[in-house]
């Protein structure tokens, strides 16, 4: 029971980190950023190749996170920025970017799965009857730390406050003299860095391939809708909720239907609370 809960929390932390990246971008720019999965893939491969080259894991991890941030900003500067006046084009552009990023990974690294070794691979934490592998513990720690840092950024710094203002009302934020392009770039930078964190935390529990993040992305989108589009704390609570539901569903009913439980929760929430758990953007619900 407790073991299932802990596994659910692990999954929930992963969903939350990915979903917060999606919801930040959606909140600021109203783009469903499918390319986020491609960012995670490239960040994971970067970490793997730097670590293969003999660098210490911490350095490789930082390189992966930096790569995530850089590629994410590139997608904004080279693609999304140009369609800001045409929101209907955003999903197509996002899917196209996802294909481009995945094929870059395929071209550079081939389709074979790679495994990422970490210094904490062999660690196994035990407390009571619960066991937690080091890689999962590391993911939980990284998720809490990065989401905590994001919370401080959004509430304590003027850049973060400007971000929340833009997410609430783009035009009104422009009226205050907030440069939109700076905020778009910042949102993509943070989303990319979180994607990098997700990549290095999640790759060791799985394997690195160009399609490694597809299922996580699907779950993360469920989380974003669950939590209310554009709501960061909705994404965190939604992520944990979905992780725990999927964990319990897999353990007590059937693991084959793990993703189905998540979608079931989504349907229930959409029926009962169409705006999501914590919707902040009344203006979007037209």
């Amino acid at each position, binding site marked *: 029971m407790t073991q299932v809960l802990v596994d659910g929390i692990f999954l929930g932390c992963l969903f939350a980190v990915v979903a917060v990246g999606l919801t930040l971008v959606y909140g600021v720019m109203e783009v469903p950023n499918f390319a986020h999965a491609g960012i995670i893939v490239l960040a994971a491969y970067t970490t793997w190749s730097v670590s293969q080259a003999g660098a210490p894991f911490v350095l490789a991890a930082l390189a992966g996170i930096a790569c995530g941030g850089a590629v994410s900003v590139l997608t904004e500067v080279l693609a999304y920025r140009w369609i800001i006046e045409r929101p209907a084009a955003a999903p197509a552009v996002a899917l196209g970017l996802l294909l481009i990023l995945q094929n870059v990974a395929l071209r550079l690294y081939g389709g074979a799965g790679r495994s990422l070794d970490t210094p904490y691979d062999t660690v196994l934490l035990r407390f009571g009857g619960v066991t937690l592998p080091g890689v999962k513990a590391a993911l939980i720690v990284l998720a809490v730390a990065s989401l905590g840092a994001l919370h401080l950024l959004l509430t304590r710094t003027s850049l973060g*406050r400007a971000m929340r203002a833009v997410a609430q009302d783009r035009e009104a934020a422009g009226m205050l003299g907030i440069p939109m392009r700076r905020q778009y770039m910042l949102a993509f930078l943070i989303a990319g860095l979180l994607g990098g964190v997700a990549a290095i935390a999640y790759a060791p529990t799985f394997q690195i391939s160009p399609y490694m993040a597809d299922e996580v992305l699907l779950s993360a989108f469920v989380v974003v809708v669950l939590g209310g589009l554009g709501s960061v704390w909705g994404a965190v609570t939604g992520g944990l909720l979905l992780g725990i539901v999927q964990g319990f569903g897999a353990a007590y009913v059937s693991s084959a239907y793990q993703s189905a439980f998540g979608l079931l929760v989504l349907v229930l929430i959409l029926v009962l609370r169409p705006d999501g758990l914590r919707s902040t953007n009344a203006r979007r619900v037209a």
Partner: protein
Amino acid sequence: MTALLTVDRVVKRYGGLAAVDGVSFTLGAGDVLGLIGPNGSGKTTLLGILAGTHDPTSGTVTLDGRVCSGRGAHRAVHAGIARTFQTTRLFGGWTLREALRLARRENRRPADVASDERIAALLALDGLLDRPCTSLTSAAQRLAMIALALATGPRVLLLDEPAVGMDTAESAALARAVRDVADDLGVAVVVVDHNMHFLMPLADSVLVMASGTVLATGTPAQIRADEAVIASYLGET
């Protein structure tokens, strides 16, 4: 006295339609200009050009000798032109002070900007600075939107139908507040409104638009007596 704001033959076309078709005027510091005209006459488009949200097809807006049109909303704000919207646009759960602080930080000449308390006093929002914006009355929310615009340290303030939805007492208080802002801060104000009881006593001069062009300009008394304006807009009273 040289003009603070010079609008020179500004044109904005959407396809074949000229929403604004060659409008020119000048405005000095502390002046209040009323901008009136029938719906669709181009008032809001002109305001959008002044505020930098629309690029003019031709013509220029010059603030203190520097061209500031066609460069985006945030650059217009940095240059010193701030606006409010027809609808109330505030940041939901924030207090007015938080929102003011954000507006202040994005401004590059913080020394010129009036303090939160001074802005609140001018707009009769004393004591409401630390309340969430959503808990204010709708009239106070509209004043709060002006407060945000003032916190960016503007030299020109554009008000798009500020008195809409206000009762007589509220719009009279708003008119006093706008007059105080113009006099005390030396801000040039452009006010678009359909409420003549609000606008006419407030404005130093009035510009009437029709079909994108300037139909008439003058003092409120001259405009009230102008036959073309009466025919196209004010109607017989």
